[in-house]
């Protein structure tokens, strides 16, 4: 079971070259297959996740959650997807049509692109970039643009406020997010994901870098626009913020993209701080799924327990607290590495 997916990929390439295809073409076809696999993973994950979040929130709030369709209401998400697909696609007349229509697509494309560098098992990254972590951070920050497009294109004051908030928030939290990952990079000496995972074969980085983990967790929550930092959406204040004017599948695309981002960030967290796919007994790809889902549940718990923080508190928390702390962590890590190296490690 361990190398099931890797072996399948090799077998596919071998079969294609056996048919007389040039190795370059075979690799290209493999890439397409991998992309389809990523999209399937994304969609399956979301179907499960939305159901799971509803169940978890129901448990927290002493409700039942979805329980009508299928066992434990598992088909509820599918029914919702069908409902959203068949809804009328309303584009308000006063919007900037081009921007309004492309915003959800941009958002979902960006979030799917994140999966390129995540190692989903032993040797299971699509591209093992030598700047993998850097790629992840830079692509992740692009989603700001999608939210700004949605906010601006909707031509609605609530949406504009939501869009502006998301820009301010994401730019502020980008910095502690990147800084907190720097500590790990300093220890590993590489931005390549496979190296980071390999460096954790003895000890997880969450033990070596606890401050970095906490700052990363907080800034990731803000970066994902999840509660208690769900400013751009803020249903109670901004009537759904940047998404106010969206209906049907366009709205659902935003929703999908948010969950896709959520899974990607949780998977990255598992990779960088919790030893990635490494683990005893079970196959590597199962380990990353288990770790990712455990992290996701922590996100759910936080979202459903805390009230929403205020916008200016949010900004000052980032600039006055998280950034200094993450900078101090870099300093501490550097000093620690230097001391250990002199001691002859």
């Amino acid at each position: 079971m361990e190398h099931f997916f890797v072996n399948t990929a090799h077998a596919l390439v071998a079969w294609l070259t056996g048919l007389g295809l040039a190795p370059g073409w075979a690799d290209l076809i493999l890439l397409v297959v991998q992309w389809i696999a990523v999209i399937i993973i994304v969609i399956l994950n979301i179907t499960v996740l939305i159901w799971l979040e509803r169940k978890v929130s129901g448990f927290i709030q002493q409700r039942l959650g979805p329980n009508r369709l299928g066992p434990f209401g598992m088909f509820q998400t599918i029914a919702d997807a069908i409902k959203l697909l068949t809804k009328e696609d309303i584009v308000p007349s006063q919007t900037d049509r081009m921007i309004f229509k492309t915003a959800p697509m941009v958002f979902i494309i960006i979030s799917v692109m994140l999966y390129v560098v995540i190692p989903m098992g032993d040797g299971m990254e699509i591209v093992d970039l030598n700047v993998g972590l850097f790629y992840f951070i830079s692509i992740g920050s692009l989603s700001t643009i999608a939210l700004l497009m949605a906010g601006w294109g909707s031509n609605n004051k609530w949406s504009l406020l939501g869009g502006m908030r998301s820009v301010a928030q994401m730019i502020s939290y980008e910095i502690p997010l990147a800084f907190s990952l720097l500590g790990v990079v300093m220890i590993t000496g590489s931005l390549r994901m496979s190296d980071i995972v390999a460096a954790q074969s003895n000890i997880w980085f969450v033990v070596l870098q606890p401050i970095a983990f906490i700052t990363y967790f907080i800034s990731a929550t803000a970066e994902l626009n999840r509660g208690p930092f769900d400013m751009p959406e803020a249903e109670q204040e901004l009537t759904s913020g940047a998404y106010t004017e969206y209906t049907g599948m366009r709205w659902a695309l935003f929703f999908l993209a948010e969950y896709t981002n959520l899974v990607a960030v949780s998977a990255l967290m598992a990779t960088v701080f919790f030893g990635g796919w490494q683990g005893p007994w079970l196959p590597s790809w199962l380990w990353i799924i288990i770790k990712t889902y455990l992290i996701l549940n922590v996100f759910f718990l936080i979202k459903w327990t805390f009230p929403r923080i205020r916008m200016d508190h949010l900004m000052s928390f980032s600039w006055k607290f998280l950034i200094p702390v993450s900078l101090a962590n870099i300093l501490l890590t550097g000093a620690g590495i230097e001391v250990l190296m002199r001691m002859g490690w």
Partner: protein
Amino acid sequence: MLQTDQYNINIGPIHPSTHGGLHVEAVMDGETIVDAIVHVGYVHRAVEKIAESRTYTQFIPYASRLDYLASHLPTMGYVQTVEKMLDIHVPERAEYIRIIMGEFSRIASHILFVGSLAIDLGATTGFTYCMRDREKILDLFEMTSGQRMIASYMRFGGFAEDLPEEFIPAARNFLKNIPQMFDEYNHLLSGNEILQARLKNIGVLSAEDAINYGITGPNLRASGVDYDLRKAEPYGIYDRFAFDVPLGEKGDNYDRFMVRLQEIEQSGRIITQALDQLPEGEIRAKIPRIVKPEKGLEVYHRIESAKGELGYYIVSDGGEKPYRLHVRAPSFINLMVLPLISRGGKLQDIIANIATLDPVLGEADR
């Protein structure tokens, strides 16, 4: 310097956190509120005019619909006003039951206040916890009158029916659970740092301003003014019970929140005493079937409702219908302070301010 402009943003009348059809026109500078203009009247049902075309008895259900979140209290106010006109003496047992039902209504309203404040701040879980606890009170109301929310249980001179047997054990059971309820609220809400940051020193209403604006009820007491009609001018049999009047210090949103939480406890104390002292006997005084007060009679009566001082002013022309009925609605008057406490705050504060002023739009618009 960048050229910036002020803009108006309409919070409501259709908005998730305006507690009904409230429309606040906010003049904004970025995310800062420059001014807020309150527009009410979206839930106007002409209740005062309706009163002129209904008999005194027929108006009782309309009175319940004023403050539908604490429906026994506005009914009690109306019924007592008419009793004052006709000089009816209510039997002891009925007086006690009135206290019990009224205080349960107050608890229900305050629990819903906590819940709706929680959901307005984005803490959806707090809302479901509060709704769960409020359900138990609504169950109690259902036992007595068959109605859960808008129970027209009171009549002139007493009640329509006596309390059912199972009511008293169920009520005691609810009171026993109040400390546990508070434990959960404190863990989930009042002890939460984000919630405190959102509420403390926001929407400060000084005692002087509160008095000048005619603010009453928990909002006034949160500003530190010790004025509770149940103590200051006891109506019914409120002078027989021992209870404290919780006061705030600063008059900010957090004080308004805490005062209501403490009032739940105090109402619990009152109900416990009333249940202990509850006498046997009649529940309804003998009154004529058709109520006809004397011509030219004018009566004003006020009670401490869950939202503040609720007053009824009734003028009689000797017929079976009131000549004029006016309601002094605390929600309406309390709401008028919203621009004052919102200026200079952030957009997110205005939502918290509306929630802590706790208006019921059915009462504000009448």
